[in-house]
């Protein structure tokens, strides 16, 4: 790693001031992603601004109305050990349990997990990448076995085809969570909550970033709303080994049943786009219908609707369909004939 300065920030204001004014400064918390990027020279910060010690942003609070507010500096291990998360948001609990390893979860923060950089080898190696400021995305026509099925308009190289690596983001999307972003100079009352899917952006030549955050912007809280009474949740993750791997494909499902009718279904797909990919058409078709093998078949097909395999990642389409089918089985009752 090339030399850099280090500041243990004593307030968010102090951190934001440095980050928004000093070129080459980087926000630092768990460090599990940033240090690997720095060691490889993918990023070369001059100054790390460590916000890990800001205890004001490390909490779990019950929201009026039943939801949960999670301070962005809460570690994944702390969330994993929390009984409320297990009891009321089992999809989130599961997504955390299958993230990284115990050692990584002891360090990694939930805010950092959402803001981590893609695991694309073109980005992490010395290969053509829009995030490096290069003219083209090398993965679009290159080695793309781990890349996107959705969300890029064309594989012409003008669009990044990397996928977002976070598991919790996928569960949080199905739970319709929001993130609160602190903007430098704005009083906390003015901090806005954004739907989690809108935190992410697809990198292009003109906008080579993976989130909507500007320098100095900090994700400070994640708000998970109370889920419909009686709803069931699941998070399923397919990996190329049984532990310590990023998702090839993952599925988070939240279903609310009214008798044998699906009153509501939310399906978020991971490992297939630059953000958690909501299968909106499948959700719409499911809503209000009686659960049947035919309906399940239709949801499965619609979840993969519009998939654009890149060449080496065609296997993701049947994998996705299989996982969606398993997820539906888990959140509905098997006795209904699925």
């Amino acid at each position, binding site marked *: *790693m*090339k*030399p*850099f*300065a*280090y*500041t*243990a*920030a*004593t307030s968010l204001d102090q951190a934001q001031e440095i980050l928004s004014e000093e070129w080459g400064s980087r926000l630092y918390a768990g*460090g*599990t992603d940033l*240090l*690997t990027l720095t*060691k*490889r020279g993918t990023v070369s910060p*001059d*100054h*790390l601004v*460590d916000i*890990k010690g800001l205890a004001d942003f490390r909490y779990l609070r019950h929201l009026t109305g039943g939801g949960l507010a999670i301070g962005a500096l809460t570690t994944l*291990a702390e969330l994993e050990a929390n009984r409320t998360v297990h009891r009321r948001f089992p999809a989130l609990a599961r997504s955390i349990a299958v993230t*990284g*390893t*115990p*050692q*990584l979860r*002891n*360090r990694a923060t939930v805010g950092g997990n959402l803001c981590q950089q893609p695991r694309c080898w073109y980005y992490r190696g010395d290969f053509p990448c829009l995030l490096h400021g290069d003219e083209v995305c090398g993965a679009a026509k290159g080695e793309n076995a781990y890349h996107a099925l959705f969300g890029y308009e064309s594989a012409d190289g003008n669009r990044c085809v990397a996928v977002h690596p976070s598991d919790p983001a996928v569960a949080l999307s199905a739970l319709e969570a929001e993130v609160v972003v602190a903007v430098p100079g704005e009083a906390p009352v003015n901090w806005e909550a954004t739907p989690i899917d809108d935190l992410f952006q697809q990198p292009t030549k003109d906008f080579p970033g993976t989130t909507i955050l500007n320098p100095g912007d900090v994700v400070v809280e994640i708000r998970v709303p109370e889920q419909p009474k009686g709803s069931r949740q699941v998070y399923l993750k397919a990996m190329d080994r049984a*532990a*310590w791997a990023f998702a090839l494909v993952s599925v988070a499902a939240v279903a609310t049943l009214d008798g044998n009718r699906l009153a509501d279904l939310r399906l978020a797909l991971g490992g297939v786009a630059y953000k958690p990919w909501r299968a909106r058409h499948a959700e719409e078709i499911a809503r209000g219908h009686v659960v049947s093998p035919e309906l399940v078949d239709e949801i499965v097909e619609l979840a993969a609707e519009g998939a654009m395999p890149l060449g080496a990642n065609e296997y993701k389409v049947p994998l996705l369909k299989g996982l969606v089918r398993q997820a539906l089985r888990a959140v509905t009752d098997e006795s209904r004939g699925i």
Partner: protein
Amino acid sequence: MERRGPGPVPVRMTVNGVTYELTVPPRRTLLDALREDLGLTGAKRVCDEGTCGACTVSLDGQAVYSCLVLAVECEGRTVETVEGLIRDGELHPVQEAFIEHDAAQCGFCTPGQIMALKALLDQNPRASLEDIRQTVAGNLCRCGAYPKIIAAGLTAAGVVAARAAAKAPEDGGAGA
């Protein structure tokens, strides 16, 4: 706190019960500080990017990859490495169990495996087979010694649980 570095800065940390004042640049990882500055080579430098677990140490009681911690962050904190597990000439139950089960093959991942399991048993003296399996999921063993590592973990868990149970009446007074 104010800006420190990029040149060497003083950092005070406690390692295996001894407080040290190191002078290190902010870019130095805890792993390199342990190995290069303190001569503690139990934690191994293998992948150096958090994907192997051979550098696992305990930081304030939690297992972490020391290659993904900066030494400068450890100001005032407590680090334990495999060298610090011996107490009054006695090995830790996890170390004893590794010998009993012959759980080291090439031995390179062993200090990391031991520190991961030790942190687990500190936090949960009644760790289950599943807890042990999940714990060593963060430590790669390419010799494939996992069956023996997991068996050693179970044996150690039994010893630690028995000691905790023997101690409980004194501490709590209520007995079992």
